[in-house]
């Protein structure tokens, strides 16, 4: 045997991967040991036959066209495992063969010259391990993507809840109107707005007369019911753009932008009338309560929140001094009294 031929076949059989050499017509010239082992076809049965005859199924595949491109046009080609299912019936073991579980193939088809004649080499690599790893990575990555989407949805839900909680925190838990901090913020924002627009604003502090006596005489449930009823009455008739919040134990602050002191007085009187008509059922069957209010107006009674609150407190003090159940505005009313 020619030493070169012998060497060639030893080398070809030592290669980890399939090597097939075809002549210009597609006839098999070389079929290495790997092909015999993984293809289950010994060299002596393959050599001399046409590749189409050995593997008829490749005719219409990308591998088939890569081989004809190499033979007819002498252009090299590659058939990658990511784009195609394994084109050749090659198996790692008998059980895979039984279940037609082909090994994954990376195939290079290269035109060559053999003994001065045009030919082409088909080189097949088993990339099953890498391919399975890639698939697993892809699956994991898809899973992560989905988990991520779920987490995003949960996060959105949490944000919505947080907003709802923040809105609840802005409210006084007993009466449902704004709490002190938020009604003050509302007032400061309204003051800034009316000052910028040259509009008027009236603040009203509405107080439940003798709440302490109600609490002590009829029980705290009655006091709470009186507070709730006052808040509900104020809220239900609140003019557009106005805000109401609870300042402390028995006091509500109402911020009324764009209204005159006369209009506010009219509104407060209406609220007082409706409140007085409400029957409040407490533990001891207590009946009704009255409201008093102090009013002060921007800009004539003060330009800042603090100034306005000072004049309000004075007005409110006077309602008590005068025997409750009345509305007193800072300014003229006070001038009359002092």
């Amino acid at each position, binding site marked *: 045997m020619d030493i070169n031929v012998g060497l060639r076949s030893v080398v070809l059989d030592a290669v980890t991967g399939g090597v097939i050499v075809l002549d210009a017509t597609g006839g098999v010239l070389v079929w290495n040991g790997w092909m015999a082992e993984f293809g289950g076809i010994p060299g002596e049965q393959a050599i001399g036959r046409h590749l189409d005859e050995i593997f008829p199924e490749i005719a219409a595949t990308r591998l088939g066209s890569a081989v004809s491109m190499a033979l*007819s*046009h*002498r*252009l*090299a080609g*590659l058939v990658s495992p990511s*784009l195609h299912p394994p084109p050749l019936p090659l198996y790692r073991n008998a059980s895979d063969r039984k279940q037609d579980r082909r090994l994954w193939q990376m195939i290079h088809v290269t035109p060559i010259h053999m003994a001065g004649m045009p030919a082409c080499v088909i080189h097949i690599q088993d990339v099953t391990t890498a391919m399975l790893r890639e698939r697993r990575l892809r699956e994991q990555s898809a899973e992560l993507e989905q988990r991520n989407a779920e987490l995003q949805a949960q996060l959105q839900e949490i944000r919505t809840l947080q907003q709802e909680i923040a809105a609840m925190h802005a409210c006084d838990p007993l009466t449902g109107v704004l709490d002190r901090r938020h009604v003050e913020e509302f007032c400061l924002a309204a003051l800034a707005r009316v000052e910028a627009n040259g509009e008027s604003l009236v603040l009203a502090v509405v107080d439940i007369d003798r709440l302490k006596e109600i609490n002590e005489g009829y029980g705290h449930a009655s006091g709470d019911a009186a507070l709730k009823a006052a808040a509900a009455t104020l809220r239900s008739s609140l003019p557009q753009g106005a805000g109401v919040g609870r300042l402390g134990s028995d006091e509500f602050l109402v911020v009324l932008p764009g209204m005159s002191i006369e209009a506010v007085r009219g509104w407060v009187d209406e609220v007082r009338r409706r409140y007085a008509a409400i029957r409040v059922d407490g533990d001891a069957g207590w009946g009704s309560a009255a409201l008093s209010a102090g009013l002060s107006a921007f800009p004539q009674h003060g330009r800042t929140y603090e100034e306005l609150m000072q004049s309000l407190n004075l007005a409110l003090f006077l309602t008590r001094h005068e025997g409750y159940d009345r509305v007193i505005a800072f300014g003229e009313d006070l001038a009359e009294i002092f």
Partner: protein
Amino acid sequence: MHEVGELQRDALAEIFNIGVGRAAASLSQIVRDEVELSAPQVLFLKPEEVRARLFSSELDRLSLVSQDFNGPFDARAMLVFQEKNALVIVSHMLDGMVDPEHLSEFEQEAMCEVGNIILNACISALADLLGIAFEGSLPHYRYAERRTLDLLGEVQEQAPVILLVQVDLRIRKQSIDGHMLFLLSVTSLHALLDSIDRFLARQGIG
């Protein structure tokens, strides 16, 4: 390049459209959906003009598949897409999720095969229509950034002319544009133009 006539350019455009048409048929088979390819423009340009055309911004990264062809004229052929476009193509081809940043090794192989199909189809069309024969190497995949686009520089000595073919790929209603480049030496350019002239003469034109 002023020495290339309009007729010669038109002939090349026709041949490349036949080539990409063949490639589209092969790609459609892989995607199991219609892939359309066209080559609306063929230009002969200097390397620096090509560089300006390929990079619309400093940040662009290109995905390149290159193959060498030898025959009556030699050329390094490259299929060039913006990397983000290559990702779009591969995600259609692989029918699934692709890392939005970079192509994995397998995705690079997929892109390599897409390039191989398109370039081989064009070269075989050239060979068939011009009546010539080539030998073509296996495709290689690589990235390039603007500052490292030396692949044009590295062959600039031998390749003062680049034949640029605009490639429009349509897949599932998405349009993706890229370029095919053929780096040619002066000798190769003349050999190419001679082949075209003979082709035109056979058609009774020119």
